[in-house]
């Protein structure tokens, strides 16, 4: 196993996106842990290397692949996009069950119902109250809706994508975190870099993924957090977690509890420290919170495909859309750039070499860092 996957794992850079799981028997995962159980003895770099968002990430190359162009100065902070707006699911039932406005759930459910995709790789709540991520391949609206709400843990959900591809699905949607979106764009862009026979002769990753919805993400928590959480509440009684400005909220059926954010942050996965992407810049559509407005989402439409699917859903009455106020957009840009600047600093500290950005982009990011300090 010559590849940099070993370094990614030993260096604590693994995002537990799951792109390397279920592509071979040598890499296995449990919870947010990925491990190489044995050397595969393959001499050349394999799928794991090409799929992993932390072996190499050439931002311009991937932008060319997804958007057909390199990033301009305008694209650096929020990634290439056509519009930024506010939206929510029209269905109150969806919204009631959702983390915020239910846009991701509504879009995926609609795409399945209209046949745009056969199924979607999502992260359900798993056992024990829905706190912990469990990847599933959802084929119906009900299954999609069962996956609503943010999971603050990583669960290698792309492993389910790999399995779905092997099972013969040819038209899939995926909802994922920014690192997962990076990984599956790499799967599409470099999938044919590795040759091998057997079952892989029938799989075409680049064609089989038809819709990518990215979720805004600041960080995720390690499973050690459960130990901390259990000192305050019974984890299986938790129904929802949320991070409004400055706090960490826990919701159960009959209770609401706040924990100090600084304490919670001690359990942030170290791999998140080098994450340069808050808004899932390579997705077709990115969806996140609209701060201070609990039942709406911020939505970034990025690709033609994303724009088409979103507008079609809007026209079908699935979504309710409104403009995003300039002030909110400015705040979003500030938050995104701040994350980039922090990540860039950490990457330099660690002498990590996976991220390749243009000179232009580097200057923008470094300038922010200076201003902030």
């Amino acid at each position: 196993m010559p590849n940099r996957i070993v370094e990614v794992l030993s260096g604590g850079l693994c995002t537990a996106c799951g792109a390397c799981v279920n592509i071979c028997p040598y890499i296995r995962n449990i919870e947010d842990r990925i491990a190489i159980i044995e050397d595969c003895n393959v001499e050349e770099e394999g799928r794991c290397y090409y799929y992993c968002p932390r072996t190499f990430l050439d931002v311009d190359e991937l932008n060319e692949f997804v958007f057909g162009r390199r990033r301009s100065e305008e694209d650096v902070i929020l990634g290439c996009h056509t519009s930024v707006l506010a939206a929510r699911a029209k269905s109150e039932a969806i919204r009631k069950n959702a983390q915020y406005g239910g846009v991701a759930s509504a879009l995926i459910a609609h795409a399945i119902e209209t046949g745009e995709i056969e199924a979607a790789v999502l992260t359900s709540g798993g056992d024990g109250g829905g706190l912990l991520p469990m990847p599933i391949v959802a084929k119906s609206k009900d299954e999609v809706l069962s996956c609503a709400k943010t999971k603050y843990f990583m669960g290698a959900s792309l492993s389910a994508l790999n399995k779905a591809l092997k099972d013969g699905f040819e038209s899939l949607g995926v909802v994922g975190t920014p690192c997962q979106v990076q990984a599956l764009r790499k799967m599409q862009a470099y999938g044919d870099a590795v040759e091998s026979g057997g079952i892989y002769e029938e799989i075409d990753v680049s064609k089989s993924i038809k819709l990518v919805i990215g979720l805004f993400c600041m960080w995720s928590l390690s499973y050690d957090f459960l130990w901390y959480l259990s000192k305050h509440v019974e984890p299986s009684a938790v129904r929802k977690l949320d991070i409004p400005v400055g706090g960490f909220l826990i919701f159960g059926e009959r209770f609401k509890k706040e924990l100090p954010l600084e304490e919670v942050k001690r359990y942030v996965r170290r791999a998140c420290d080098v994450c340069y992407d808050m808004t899932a810049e390579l997705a077709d559509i990115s969806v996140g919170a609209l701060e201070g407005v609990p039942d709406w989402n911020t939505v970034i439409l990025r690709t033609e495909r994303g724009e088409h699917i979103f507008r079609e859903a809007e026209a079908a009455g699935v979504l309710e859309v409104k403009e995003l106020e300039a002030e909110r957009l400015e705040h979003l840009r500030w938050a995104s750039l701040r994350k980039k600047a922090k990540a860039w600093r950490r990457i330099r500290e660690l002498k990590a070499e996976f991220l390749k950005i243009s000179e232009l982009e580097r200057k923008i990011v470094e300038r922010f860092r200076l201003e902030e300090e």
Partner: protein
Amino acid sequence: MLITLDEPGREVLLMGNEAIARGAIEAGVAFCSAYPGTPSSEILGVLAEAAPKLGFYAEWSTNEIVAMEAAAAASFSGLRALCAMKSQGLSVCADFLTTLNLSGTKGGMVIVVCDDPAALSSVNEIDTRSYAEIADLPLLEPATVQEAKDMTKFAFELSEELQEPCIVRSVTRISHGRGNVRLGEINRERRAAQLSERFVTGLAASAVERHAGLHEKLRRAAEKFEGSPFNFYYGDPDAAFLIITSGAGWLYSKEALQLLDLKEGFGILKLGTTHPLPRRFVASHLKHAAEALVIEETDPFIERKVKALAADLGLDVRIYGREPGSERAFADAVGEMSVDAVIEALRRVKNVEKASFRDAEYEREAEEALKMLPRREIAFCPGCPHRASLFAIKTAIKLDGREVPVCGDIGCYTLGMFRTGFYISSTSHCMGAGIGLASGFRNLEKPVIALAGDSTFFHACIPGLINARYNNANVLFILLDNGATAMTGFQPHPGVGTNAMGEPAPVVRLEEVCKGIGVPVRICDPFDVDAAIKAVYEMLQQDGARVLIFRHTCGIIETRRRGRRKAYVVEEKCIGEGCGCNRFCSRVFNCPGIVWDKEKGKARIDEVVCTGCGVCAKLCPAGAIVVEET
């Protein structure tokens, strides 16, 4: 069944262990007990089969010391009793043995111990004869299958006469060798059991006085041995060169002299009663020798005694043996003897030319034939649940990331130290050592895994588990419950519901024992690979002593019960050597039921050995292995 044949005088071909069993039957044995262990297991195996027919009792005991205690109780009540075990089993009994000798016995009690020189199927090659010395008990060493029977019978008589247990020490080549045996009469006398005296040691009975009494009994035994037919002399009556030998060494020595055509001036002193040594008999032959070569397995036991005897008597004889450090050692005191080893010894001490006994053509052909043998590595059987269990453990340890050590134990899963067991074990010693060691690794400050099979658990692990619980050791004790004492040949044990004689027996459940000790218990089928990995991983995150039972019937038993399932590879799906597999099933999971078809570049199922267990099908990344439902 040959050993129950009631035809005195008839010659039959018996295995050494069958001959020992027949000897016990001819002695009228009433009680037999054993714990299985190669090369001893067949003794109780055949006795248990004969027991209902001849009306005596036989049991597989939980371990050797219990077997010996149970046999001793039968002896105390006046019955003739035999207990059998392998060499290491006697070490398990050492504590009882060295008090049993002081209390003495009543009905003839024979302890049969089968040593394993060269450790062919053991963790050491310990020589039982030293225990006879430690315990001051008489010991007999059969040199032929006939003697195995005759000595066993005689041992009962001697034991009854001395009121002490008598040890019969066999070795692999005697126990597992076959030879003609002239049968004697079956003793059908059935005594009534009766406990009419006290068998005590300690404060009520002076150990020192009894120790002295033991020595007196040994003197009586030695006197009896002076005229024993088990000791005899062969060859030139006034030989200047003497081979002194016992056990398997007797026939090796005889054959070596024949091959080398050494007659004049050579003689063999064959000893069957090696503890205590018949000193006058040995001295009578040492007196005509200028040189003596001692051929024995494995320790220089006779050698030391003969040297001491020669020194006592002031005899001028050069004695060659294998005493480490001795100027006259012809080899180190390890491993088995053989005809070749005797010839090599003669070459060294007598300058006998090697070329004179074996022709070069034979040597060349033998060497060629050796090359034709395929290389086979030691491996779990196809369908073995241990392969799946150890794979799950190895994977969970990798996922955990803390390099959790694994303490192995004795059973098929001892192979955890080899490639077939993914090199998982860091330690492997004796029965029950795994859990004991694991509870002592506390300074590593991480969890430690201990392994034990079901039979091993009952045998030796319960105090270790209690210790782990009591002292709050961070131990995950994984019981590999395959429902069998598989390694020694599927003898029943307390967990399986039948006894040695095939009668239904109460089942002692592993999980109930563990729960009784107060440790959390989880049960999982190792063939459910993902769940098994998850179970180990999750339990590694816990603290204190906890038990995971991997329960799946031994592949051999399961295949006997339900037959084989057909499995095959769908070649179009098989990834072969490419990224995404690279021969995972045949290279890493490494079950002998899967072979790599080099020409096709695909995996192939070897239908001759595959049991159709289906674990490889679950691990195949391409879903290319299909198991047909039956």
